[in-house]
């Protein structure tokens, strides 16, 4: 693990990325966050912690994950060359596990025997349940009942791993409601419980801590791309729900000049339909889940329901650092519809023999849109953040197939 720094120095010591981030929680959570911040700062500076984290990533997760040149697909698109960072090859099938190992290690150092998590697609829940099993911790995962229905296989995986999955019936029954419920559990059981947040959102220090644990993705790319292509890519592309895989690959590139950073949000049924999950593109700054960031909300400040074919992108907020990268202009944020993501999903299956997660398919779809507009010597690096096995039912349903 390398902690990237200077000259880009965010967040500030109180957890702010410009006007975003911060600690917007009820007083009951403040001592818990103070305790976590102190514990994490100690871990962050401890060579033994960093060495153990690196060991776990290598031997348990299988890092470094390779980069793959999607040559047939690039040729067919007829423009820039597309390279894929294969986070789908990690143990548990997505980037989420990097962060879970890091946070579970912090929990162990804090002496907390119980971990809880929220999950949307189930990937973060599976990764948390996996790591909890690995370390012998009790694990409770909160999941919106709508997502429980959409992601039955992942629910079963979590149960196999010994976790308790709690379906959440309140609100829109998706990720944001699972997050609310996990926060309630944490505030009630904070004496023995560590809350493993799955994305770069929530109150400080979560956006910083999750970014640190995911930064391994981009750090590896910084070394791998010159080995493979002789240089760094022209564009780095990643999907953005909460934004952890994007932050992980973007962050080490922030200070690398001339590398475009492009985050891809879910346009759902189309931006004009209003049924989407593109908080940075269509939202307004506000306060939710412990931080100030862009939110999809109505004129009265109520959070509105989001729509995406991909459960992992179905979230009305976004990590505060993305809000800051958008405002500062260092990253660009674009949108891709369900239909475009599905097409990229099928293309990658047929042309490269890789079944991508529907979340990652959004990043792929944007690469497919961008590549033909660029010369053949340009290089696009796409974070293939997860594999698509979990999405079989969703994709089959769209194709009118029943198992």
């Amino acid at each position, binding site marked *: 693990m390398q902690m990237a720094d200077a000259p880009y120095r965010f967040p500030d010591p109180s957890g702010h990325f410009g006007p975003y981030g911060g600690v917007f929680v*009820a*007083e*009951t959570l403040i001592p818990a966050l103070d305790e976590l911040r102190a514990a994490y700062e100690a871990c962050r500076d401890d060579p033994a912690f960093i060495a153990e984290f690196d060991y776990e990533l290598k031997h348990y997760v299988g890092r470094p994950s390779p980069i793959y040149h999607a040559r047939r697909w690039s040729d067919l698109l007829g423009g820039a060359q597309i390279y894929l960072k294969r986070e789908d090859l990690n143990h548990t099938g997505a980037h989420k596990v990097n962060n879970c190992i890091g946070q579970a290690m912090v929990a162990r150092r804090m002496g907390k025997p119980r971990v809880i998590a929220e999950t949307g697609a189930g990937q973060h829940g599976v990764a948390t349940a996996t790591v909890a099993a690995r370390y012998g911790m009790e694990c409770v995962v909160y999941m919106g009942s709508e997502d429980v229905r959409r992601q039955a296989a992942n629910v079963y995986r979590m149960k196999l791993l010994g976790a308790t999955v709690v379906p959440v019936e309140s609100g829109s029954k998706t990720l944001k409601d699972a997050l609310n419920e996990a926060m309630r559990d944490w505030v009630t059981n904070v004496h023995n419980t560590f809350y493993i947040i799955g994305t770069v959102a929530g109150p400080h220090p979560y956006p910083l801590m999750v970014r640190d644990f995911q930064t391994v993705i981009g750090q590896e790319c910084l070394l791998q791309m010159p080995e493979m292509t002789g240089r760094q890519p022209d564009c780095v592309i990643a999907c953005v729900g909460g934004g952890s895989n994007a932050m992980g690959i973007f962050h080490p590139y922030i200070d690398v000049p001339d590398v475009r950073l492009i985050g891809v949000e879910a346009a759902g049924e189309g931006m004009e339909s209003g049924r989407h999950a593109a908080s940075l593109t269509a939202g307004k700054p*506000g*306060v939710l889940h412990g931080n100030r960031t862009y939110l999809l*909300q109505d004129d009265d*400040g109520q959070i509105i329901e989001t729509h995406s074919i991909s459960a992992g992108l179905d979230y009305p907020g976004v990590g505060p650092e993305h809000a800051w990268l958008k405002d500062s202009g260092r990253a660009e944020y674009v949108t891709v519809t369900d239909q475009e993501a599905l097409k990229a999903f099928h293309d990658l299956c047929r042309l490269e023999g890789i079944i991508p997660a529907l979340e990652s398919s959004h990043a792929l779809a944007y690469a497919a849109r961008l590549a033909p507009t660029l010369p053949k010597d340009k290089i696009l690096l796409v974070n293939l953040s997860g594999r698509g096995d979990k999405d079989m039912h969703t994709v089959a349903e769209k194709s009118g197939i029943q198992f």
Partner: protein
Amino acid sequence: MSKIQSTFQRLQATGRRALIPFITAGDPAPELTVPLMNALVEGGADIIELGVPFSDPMADGPTIQRASERALANGMTLRRVLDTVREFRTGNAETPVVLMGYANPIEAMGVERFVSAAREAQVDGVLIVDYPPEECESFAQAAKDAGLDPIFLLAPTSTEQRFRDVARVGSGYIYYVSLKGVTGAATLDFDEVATRIPQIRAQVGMPVGVGFGIRDAESARRIGEVADAVVIGSRIIEEIERSPRDRLTANVTAFLREVRTALDQVEGAVR
């Protein structure tokens, strides 16, 4: 002196405790909120905490979340909450009203607009659950400048540094959350409250109200032994949920009156 401060001063002069009930504006119906507020006053309320519904009430338990969902389904908004207070004021000029809610609806309206609209509606205090002192110094100052008391929470786990933080930015009273957890949780540790409240009162120089976990006359009386005020929320929402419409205000008044009577058995100054 604010209306909240003078209310506490008047009560302290007669050795009584403040009774502070909570309801969510718009629950069970927008047109019933003012009648319910009047019913609370009739039952002995000294200050009313009026909940501003929010789609994601993270610090609340299932009971108040249900109230919030019903209120939103009824079309309640922050603007309409302010209209409700204005309407209440046509019949009641004295009882202080504290708006309690989450930051986002206020930020969506704009802090300056909210503060001036709240003053104009004769709101007396604001308690924004997810605005801890370190994130809202300018909001708290704007509220104070408009004559609104910014009210803050303290918890069993709060450190003495937190006491100083809320003493600096807050005014009116302190809302002591007597439980770890969310609103409507079950158990209350009286000994813990009895130890902590005197420490807080001594350090913040404001009256201290205790909420979370107070469910009946007896628990209210015991809290009244040590605190300046008792806050009751979830238990009143439950009364609202189970009352037929024609008994709604009468039931709420009757429940609160029972608590009032028990609270008035506590005599003398707060220990």
